[in-house]
Structure formats: structure tokens, C-alpha cells
């Protein structure tokens, strides 16, 4: 309401911004897409590519439900502008299983009942896959700290930690 015009000088868009052409490899499949520059990776995945496993929880980088793997590293797709990631490899929850064989983390989440409503689960699992690849977590304390970017409103945390421990063991501590 108070906003001085100078603070919003950026609004005067005269020409229509140009779309950006990018190629992403998403769950092993190369996709070339023309997108508006303001498209987040999360919106691209969900609205354009129908990959609705990645969830929009807060859309502000505070909950972790949108976590995906980008070139093998866990990132928040809601704060990622897709235009900046031309050439990247993206893995979402839909890309973790090999055919009908669940990823060890997916199996471990089932074994340990590591969710209730399930809304945060795709982000939890992608984040845990990143955590295991990083190879930094040695103890329960480490897992808790390095998974703190993924909020679970149902409070399934003890079972999530147990599931990640199981998957870490199944995957030999590393990927």
C-alpha cells in the first residue's frame, strides 16, 4: 500500500518477455521445452509435465515438499527457475523406482510406516536420496540435522529416521 513507485520500477514491462528454450533430462527422458522465464521447476514439473509427485507445500523454501534431485543434488524445485537449469538432469519421486522394484528408500518408508498423510513423503524420500549420496550422515543426530529441511506435519519423524537408517544400510552407506 505504501510502496513507493521507485521500489516497483521493475513493473514497467513494455515488451513481452521472451520465452526461453531449455532441454532437461527428467527421470532419464530428454525434454526440450519453451517456457516463460518466471516458471519454477516445480510448476514446470507439476503443471506442464504432469509429474505431480513433487508437492507444493509452502512454495517458499520452508517445507521441503518440493525437493528433487538436480544433477544428483537435492534442491528445492519451488525456488529454482527452470530457465536457469538448461542441460540439467532432474530426478523426481516418479524416477526413483526401477520398473516395479521400489527404490530402497521407498521400501524402507513402507517398512517403517514413515508417513501418515503422505504429502511430505516425495520430498522426504528425494531429500534422503540426496543425503545418502552426500555420505555425511553417520548417526541418528546427523540424519535429523541433515533432514531438517523437510517438515512433516504429521510428526512421523522417528519412523522417517528409522527408514533412512535402513536404506543407508541397504545401500551400503553410500549410493
Amino acid at each position, binding site marked *: 500500500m505504501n510502496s513507493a513507485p*521507485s521500489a516497483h520500477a*521493475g513493473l514497467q514491462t513494455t515488451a513481452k518477455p521472451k520465452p526461453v528454450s531449455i532441454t532437461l533430462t527428467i527421470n532419464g527422458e530428454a525434454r526440450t521445452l519453451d517456457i516463460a522465464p518466471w516458471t519454477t521447476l516445480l510448476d514446470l514439473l507439476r503443471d506442464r509435465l504432469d509429474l505431480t509427485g513433487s508437492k507444493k507445500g509452502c512454495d517458499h523454501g520452508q517445507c521441503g515438499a518440493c525437493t528433487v534431485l538436480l544433477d544428483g543434488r*537435492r534442491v528445492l524445485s519451488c525456488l529454482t527457475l527452470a530457465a*536457469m537449469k538448461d542441460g540439467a538432469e532432474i530426478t523426481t519421486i516418479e524416477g526413483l523406482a526401477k520398473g516395479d522394484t521400489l527404490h530402497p528408500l521407498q521400501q524402507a518408508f513402507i517398512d517403517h510406516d514413515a508417513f501418515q498423510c503422505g504429502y511430505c513423503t516425495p520430498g522426504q524420500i528425494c531429500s534422503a536420496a540426496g*543425503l545418502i549420496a552426500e555420505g555425511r550422515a553417520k548417526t541418528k543426530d546427523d540424519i535429523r*540435522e541433515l*533432514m*531438517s529441511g523437510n517438515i512433516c506435519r504429521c510428526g512421523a519423524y522417528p519412523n522417517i529416521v528409522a527408514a533412512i537408517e535402513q536404506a543407508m544400510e541397504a545401500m551400503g552407506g553410500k549410493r
Partner: protein
Amino acid sequence: MNNFDYIRASDIADAVRMKAADPAAKFIAGGTNLVDLMKYEVERPARLIDISRLPLRSVEETDDGGVRIGALVPNSDLAYHPLIERSYPLLSSAILGGASAQLRNMASTGGNLLQRTRCLYFYDVATPCNKRAPGSGCGAIAGLNRINAILGTSEACIATHPSDMCVALAALDATVHVAGPAGARSIAFVDFHRLPGETPEIDNNLRSDEIITAIELPPQGFATHYSYLKIRDRLSYAFALVSVAAALELENGHIRVARLALGGVAHKPWRDVAVEALLRGEAPSRDLFGAAADALLKDAKGFAHNKFKIGLARRAIIRTLTQAANATPQVQSIKKVR
């Protein structure tokens, strides 16, 4: 988010040229703060200049035995870099105390310096904020100010700088290297961020046409006697109410060099060299650390909801200096404070 134009810079000169041609454009690297602010319409740039592909991703030893960190090194890569873990563990610890693993994978070193305050009124465009809309007033002074500053405030602004990494960089006497149309220059870290004064809309002394290229650390890394203690409303993934970076060099049981920097208490990482001088030559003790804390906080001023920070900061300073002196640094994954 507003519609905007997107261009990609291929090298530093290219980035500087693009910015000179459109001063209202914003650089984007990790984007973790800027994209969020754009979603809240606090920032509405007509053009983004993508600098994420510039060749600024190396961590290299300098000739004098220090280290030069490229501005685009992700926070996680920096925290886990063998050279940083070994020689500058205070920096590793502070980085790992901040944000979440996902955000640390995205956020750049240079961008960490440039993140904006988390003051509630800066984020809420329906309220006054001199930092967001100069001249509109400060919503925090008579509003909800639990997270706001107690040191170096002005009548225009009581915002804090939210970084953990920067608190360690201040303690370690880092240097910021920047480039602009007039060439390259360097800025001492303690002079990089500003106090709010009458112009809280200006966070730091980087000129609007400049870009950060690197952060340099001097050889002395305080790898034995250091600690970073962060106090916040939950045990992880929250901004600091108060944080303390302490680094000591001890000789024959006496303090030869002391460094002390605080986060969460001011518009910039707070260092007070007079307090560090007070520690020099003395043997570590609770009384000494208490006296140092009292000296550092003598001009602290609380507001309706954050007066507790003064006592909290005093205790955190004593605890962190004790941890540093005992070579028992706070481990970020262990929540018990010893």
C-alpha cells in the same frame, strides 16, 4: 511473481556490461532469497541476469597461505571442502548451522552476503518498511520485534542481517573481492555490510553496478580454538535469535588473539575490536568472558519483544568463548550445548 526478461551472462565482463546497460536488472545466482522475495512481490525486477554459469566456482590456496573462494561456490561445497574443514572449521560450522541441506546446495557464497533481512515488515508489502519502501516508516519498532536488532539500530530500521556464514567471515577477517565498470576492488569484510542509519534501503557497500567475484580468507584460521553457537526458536532450520562466532589463539594458557562476532543482533555481523583487545593477554575464565560480554553489550537496546536477546547474547558469548578456549566446539548436529 511479476513477468521478467531473462538473460545469461557468459563471463564477468559480460555480466558487468549487462548490468551497466540496465541498472534496474538483478543478478541471480542461487536464487534462494531473490526468487522468494519475488514471490512476495518485495522484489519485482524487469530483468534477471543469470550469473550462475560464470567461472567462479573454485576454492584455491593463495600465495600467502590463505584461501580464495569463488563467489559461486555453493554453501554446501564450501562447508565440506577439505581445505575449509581442516583450516577454517569455524566457517564450515557456521555454514552448516544455517538453512537446510537443500538450500545450502543451491545458495552461492556471494549471494549469502547479499541476502536481505528476514524482518516481518520487510516481507509484508502491506506494512510500512523503510528498507523496502524508503520513507514509509518502520513497522517493527512499535510492532512485532522479537527477531529484530539490539545493537546499532536507528530510528529508521531495526532489521538484522540473517546470515550465519557472514558471522564467521567477519570473525575470520575475510576480504570481499568485487568487479565493476571501473575495475576490480576489495572490501574488508567488516566494512562490507552497513548499519541502517538514515538509509536502511542500502544493506551494504557493494555499488549497484558491481558484482562479487570472490571471498578471501587470511592464513590464520583458528582451527583449534573456535566455536559457532546458534540459538534459535527451534533446533534446526531457523534463523538465529543470537549466534556467536568465537576464535582464539592461546599461548602458554593466555589469549594471544581473540575474535568475536555476533549474528542475529544487528544490521551486520557484529564485531567489536575493543572487546577483543580486552581479552588479549588474559587467561580464559568465566569472569573474563563475562566482562567481555558486558563490554560488547553495554550499548545494547531492546524493544518490546526482544529485550531477552541482551541476556541471551551475554550467556551465549560466555558459552561460546568457553567452548573455543576448551577446544570443544559446538557440533551443529548435536543439540546439547556444553
